[in-house]
């Protein structure tokens, strides 16, 4: 008499478990996974920054922004190269700075002034434009690395480098002293400031050294 109800209860329990296991979920579910955090590096510049003069196949590996990105940053870093061929600082204010503002970067690396120095444009205009570029880059909250111009035969870079140093100091950017480096340039190019692969490596190293220096503020 006591055994039969127990068997009945066990059978009902088994049936209930079977039904629960067999019924399909009415709706597919998806889980939200945490997404890895990344930093963003934006590079601004002119022809050398986009790798002009380098082999077309290898400019994505051997241009200084690539080497700097590869060697100085952790893998979880996004690189945006805002550089445009033959752009002056005035052009960069229009074409490159909006990308910096959109990207909210952690680091902005700038190498501008080659066009102005090559064409010996007025220093006062260059100063105003560069000041605008660096001020707006700094306004995003990013650390700014600002490179000056390396020595190039036949071009007076002194006045431009003094402007770059002053803007860096005024805006709290870290100066990247390319004037102190020996950078080998490609011969016979339209621009005098087009480094060869070895020159790109030297520039990248100079940016890396500046990145590791303590920011002024």
């Amino acid at each position: 008499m006591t055994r039969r109800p127990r068997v009945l209860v066990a059978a009902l329990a088994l049936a209930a478990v079977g039904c629960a296991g067999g019924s399909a979920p009415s709706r597919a579910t998806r889980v939200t996974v945490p997404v890895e955090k990344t930093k963003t590096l934006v590079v601004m510049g002119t022809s050398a920054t986009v790798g002009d003069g380098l082999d077309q196949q290898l400019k994505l590996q051997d241009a200084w922004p690539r080497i700097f990105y590869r060697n100085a940053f952790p893998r979880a870093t996004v690189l945006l190269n805002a550089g445009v061929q033959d752009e002056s600082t005035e052009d960069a204010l229009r074409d490159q700075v909006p990308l910096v503002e959109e990207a909210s970067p952690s680091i902005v690396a700038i190498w501008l002034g080659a066009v102005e120095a090559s064409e010996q444009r007025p220093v006062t205009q260059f100063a105003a434009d560069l000041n605008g570029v660096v001020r707006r880059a700094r306004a995003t909250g990013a650390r700014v690395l600002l490179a000056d111009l390396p020595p190039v035969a036949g071009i007076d870079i002194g006045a431009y480098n003094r402007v770059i140093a002053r803007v860096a100091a005024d805006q709290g950017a870290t100066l990247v002293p390319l004037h102190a480096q020996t950078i080998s340039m490609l011969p016979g190019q339209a621009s005098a400031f087009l480094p060869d692969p070895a020159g790109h490596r030297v520039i990248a190293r100079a940016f890396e050294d500046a990145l590791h220096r303590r920011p002024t503020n």
Partner: protein
Amino acid sequence: MTWRDAIVMAGRSVRRRAGRALLTVLAVALAATLLTSLLIASGAARRRVLDQVSEGGPLAGIQVAAAAPDPGALDTDQPSPGAPRAIDDNALARIERVPGVKSVVPVIVDPVRVVPPTNPIVKATTSDADNEGARAPFSENLVGADLSHANDLPITVLSGRLPRAGSLTEVAVTLGYVRRFGLNRSQAARIVGTEIVLGAPRLFGAIGPQGQIRGRWTRAAVVGVVAQQAANGEILAPIEQARLAQDWSRRGDNPAQFGVDPSPYSALFVVANGLGRVTEVRAAINRIGYSTSAPETLIESVQRYLHVVEIVLGGIGLIGLLIAALGITNAMLAAVRERRREIGVLKAIGARDRDVRRVFLLEAGTLGFAGGLVGSVFGYMLARALASVVNRYLAQEHLQGVAFGVPVAVLSAAVVGATLLALIAGTLPAQRAAGLPARQAMGDR
């Protein structure tokens, strides 16, 4: 007579005729070995064949394209898709609500520029010229999938592992990528651990006379080599990576110029609750307005053939077990004849018919259990040995090996089945022993 007495008597009888018992156990063990090894091998082969047919994905997988269904091709496995139709979050939610849907995994495909590793992988195997070629950037598709549901996708890991879901710095690559470096499938592991740089393109039409293309460049470690059919592309990444790349490209001017998909999701991979519901789920998704494809007809045909093979192999094993069972009956009948006097004494001192029956059934069950246990262990070992030979051959042919686990259900069923069969085989001798009148049993001596 208590159960304990019956067990002791059955045990004593087995020990007394150890040679005969051993031969009987051996017969059952051989039959069980044959049955288990055949069933394990056919189960492994079945998994491998279905895995191949379903391209590594779940059998009830359905691919949903970002296109309207072609009404003329609804009943085929691989219909040609109709006009493009975007899959957005709303469509995704509607498909998730379709009855019979187990999971929906979205897939995003993005065109990217790939910069291969800077340190040459293939220097030892190819010429410097080939090596330079292998370093050249190339355009490819980045396939982003929700890898938290990787088991629901047609992806097979060939070497290494899958990228972590949510990772922005890990990718897997296909054999197509591996072959770019002059490597073959057996050398795929050499790619694992290298780094690639991926660039999502974006056109800034207002810059320069022809606009300016800028890339959003990311670096990723190659953590695995896979065979994948989620979408067309050599780089497999977590969907979060592909979504960021897609967002970047779509914010530019004329993203279609690079082949950027106008649909938020390029495809969906839907898994139905069982192969039987695939047709119903496909029809429901078609009604929502999307083209679907699934190898359901092919899988069903293959399953039918595999089932026939399993029945034949199981039948061979069962014939072996039946022969062993006849051996048990024969041995037990001989034991009844030899033990008439003992049965008579038992009955004379008060043992009932059912006590005698219990002793003989216990003896038969013990032989069956021992044979089944030994046979299932040997069957498993034999199947493993066969699998290792087959896998060695498949590895030589650069094919994926057969996955081999411990089939607890088959092993347990072999032991239980052999025991039950032995009990059935022992029923006739036990019945005959129980039916012997005490006086006749004693008098025969």
